């Protein structure tokens, strides 16, 4: 990625599509990081993310954090980690 390319995303010129994207709420610093990857890496990153989201969905809900006692919180010495 050239310096000009980085500048376009990090400091979008007024009136540019990048400026409109930022105004819309797009975090172009993430886009810039994607553009540093190869196309194959972009797809693999997407797949990793999909797998990660699926793993999060399988997380078990334990209960209100302040109700978790030291005894319940296996492997840690503090409560509510």
């Amino acid at each position: 990625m050239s310096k000009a390319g980085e500048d376009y995303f990090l400091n979008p010129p007024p009136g540019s599509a990048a400026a409109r994207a930022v105004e819309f709420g797009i975090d172009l610093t993430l886009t810039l990081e994607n553009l540093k990857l190869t196309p194959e890496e972009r797809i693999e990153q997407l797949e990793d993310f999909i797998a990660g989201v699926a793993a999060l969905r399988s997380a078990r809900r334990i209960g209100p954090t302040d109700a978790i006692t030291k005894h319940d919180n296996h492997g840690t010495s503090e409560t509510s980690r």
Partner: protein
Amino acid sequence: MQSLNTIITAPLRLLGEYEIEVVIIGGVAATLFGSTQLTNDLDVCYARTSKNLEKLASALQSVHAHLRGVPDSVPFLLDAETLRKELNFTFITDIGSLDLLGEVRGVGGYDDVLDGSVTYELFGYRFPVIEIGKLILAKRAAGRPKDLIAIPELEAIQERQSMRDKH
């Protein structure tokens, strides 16, 4: 059971292995251009020639493809003739989801989508990817919120590409 770590690459490899004429469209095309928008399936526009439909049917049979959202009790014969009779299909397979579009709203059929496309080499195979301006047109024509929110970022990427190409 499909592996989530290959949910895009496995269907891509399948299409490459069977030498099916497709153009990558949709969210995976956006990902290839650098978009941060997420997708969990592969969308392609496919050529509707007899030879391609035969190869496509064979490929889909090999991964036990069936229509998404349709009960298994509903009969569906997966062959070239069935593919010929309809235009767009949404499949679930052993290796991931695969959406096959004979026509892309806002752009047209396979030849229209192929025109101006850019070829990427991915996982040992070459695939045409829809031109970014046409992808934006397609997303605008689809008009769903998830399509529309992808447009500003794609327009920024497109503008950056244009600036780079001029230099």
